[in-house]
């Protein structure tokens, strides 16, 4: 469906970039009214806090958050952070957590999407079941898995013992070496359906004629996937992986509820660490400095994020 006039109009208007921004802004001033409510709310709740976080990162503020008694310490908070051992531990954890959560969520999502793409009896039910974990609250999921991983009465431990694979139930989340992988399993459980949904929709855009042509040309199932299907999924995949990576990087609930970052920081990632510094130990200055660093990292990554997310938009407008 093309809106010929609308498109032509928009395209022509692009050529008008030089008309004088202010003049244009004035003539189209009514348009801003539509976005004004959204902008206002975001200014109050987002722009102001960013400013405030930067401000706080240069001060030591008393535990009770009495702002009148804060003491200017310059860059000291940043020096403390970069000199600490914990920051490296937490950074490594964050990278492992984000990378493996994203890779496995995407891989399982892709596999499920491909397996569900063909029609068979019960497909709809199957799809619905696979999507449910994504909707289940992360807090509930954390408790469910915590119970499943329970070191005395956990069902996985019991199965392993029952099959003779272990002498006694393993300590999945109380052991430094297994806690992070165990949490990633929970995270992937909640995240892969998202990748599945995105990729299922992506699969529908693969032109059937191309697949038929490839078949006529003698391509095997694998070759058809690799040469026809996969290239068509590239755009969706990029967006999906980015969204997954961002949301995994920003995870909080699963590690926080299940382990609180423990044992001995083995499952602390940046976000849980910042939260604990702020609301656990009331080290407001340090926590704010962490947030500013995080913000800077994300801003630089944000460039790619926005580009990937808006590229679909641009293509759709046929520019």
């Amino acid at each position, binding site marked *: 469906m093309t809106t010929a006039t609308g498109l032509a109009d928009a395209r022509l208007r692009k050529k008008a970039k030089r008309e004088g921004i202010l003049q244009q802004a004035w003539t189209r001033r009514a348009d801003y009214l539509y976005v004004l409510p959204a902008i206002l709310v975001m200014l109050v709740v987002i722009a102001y806090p960013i400013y405030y976080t930067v401000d706080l990162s240069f001060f030591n503020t008393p535990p009770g958050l009495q702002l009148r008694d804060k003491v200017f310490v310059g860059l000291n908070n940043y020096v403390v952070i970069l000199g600490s051992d914990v920051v490296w531990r937490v950074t490594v954890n964050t990278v492992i957590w984000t990378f493996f959560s994203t890779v496995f969520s995407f891989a399982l999502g892709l596999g499920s999407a491909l397996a569900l793409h063909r029609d068979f009896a019960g497909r709809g039910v199957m799809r619905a079941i696979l999507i*449910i974990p994504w909707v289940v609250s992360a807090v509930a999921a954390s408790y469910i898995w915590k119970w499943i991983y329970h070191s005395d009465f956990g069902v996985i431990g019991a199965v392993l013992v029952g099959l003779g694979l272990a002498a006694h139930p393993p300590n999945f989340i109380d052991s430094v070496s297994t806690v992070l992988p165990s949490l990633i399993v929970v995270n992937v459980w909640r995240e892969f359906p998202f990748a599945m949904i995105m990729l299922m929709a992506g699969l529908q855009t693969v032109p059937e004629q191309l697949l038929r042509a490839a078949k006529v040309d003698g391509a095997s199932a694998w070759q058809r996937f690799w040469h026809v299907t996969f290239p068509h999924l590239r755009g969706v995949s990029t967006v999906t992986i980015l969204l997954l990576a961002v949301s995994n990087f920003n995870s909080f609930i699963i590690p926080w509820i299940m382990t609180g970052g423990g044992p001995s920081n083995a499952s602390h990632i940046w976000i849980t660490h910042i939260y604990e510094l702020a609301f656990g130990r009331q080290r407001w200055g340090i926590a704010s400095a962490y947030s500013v660093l995080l913000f800077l990292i994300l801003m630089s990554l944000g460039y790619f994020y926005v580009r990937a997310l808006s590229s679909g938009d641009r293509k759709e407008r046929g520019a």
Partner: protein
Amino acid sequence: MTSMTNRVAPRKGKPLDVWRWVGRIFLVLMLLYTAVPMIWMLLTSIKSGFAAMQFPPQWWPNEPTLASYQRLLDPTNSVGQDFLRFFWNSLFVSTATTILAVIVAVPAAYAFSRFEFPGRNFLFFAVLLRNMFPAVIFLVPLFILMRLLGLVNTHGSLILTYLTFGLPLAIWLLKGFYDNIPYQLEQAARIDGATRFKAFMLIVMPLSAPGIIATAIYSFIGAWNEYIFAYTFLNRNDKLTLPVGIQRFFSENTTDFPGLMAASFMMSLPVVVLFLLLQRYFVRALTEGAVKH
């Protein structure tokens, strides 16, 4: 979505059977991965506290009981009183957030889809960028702000933050819908005698109803499941929402796993049902922006 035919794998010959079986086995494994935790939650929730704490476990409860559910839903005991209050609080906060999000997101998404005003791209990028910053970054100053506004321990603090943090994706979802409504329909309406506003209300709004439904579900589920703000802004027992309430419940009853599982189940039930009923709108909206036609 449902009218798809076999596209990826061919129907005849040997190599295809291999892939078909790979697909089936994979699906069975995924089904186990997905469903077993949920089934175990349900099975545990109908055991007694004693039956749950056994090794090896009772795979199937010897004496199934709905005691945990009865306790949670009974307003005459303190546990039930709390749980029902948390439930009500969650319902109120999520509904209010949803209504406000739709009211704010609809005009914004429409403007982003239709108009080319200077700064339009910048504004949209700002909206998208917001989505990638974790809540934690904003938490300390927001807490101070809420304290300043006297909103700590009120549902207003949650509604305001949920609204803001949900808006970017809500606008993005809706914009995808507006992009797919031909502009000529509005032009036609304006020539037929409608003002710009009337054309929007009478022609565009009804057509974007699926998008609005999707945005509403998205906002509702997001608000219903949100934890970190609720955990930070609320500490009075009578104000807590379900995720924080359940956490508090568990920290006071560390061994009541049937009760915890029953609470988890009842907390998940409304959003799962809502989602399953309306998933086609939601899935469509989610993929609209990312998948080209």
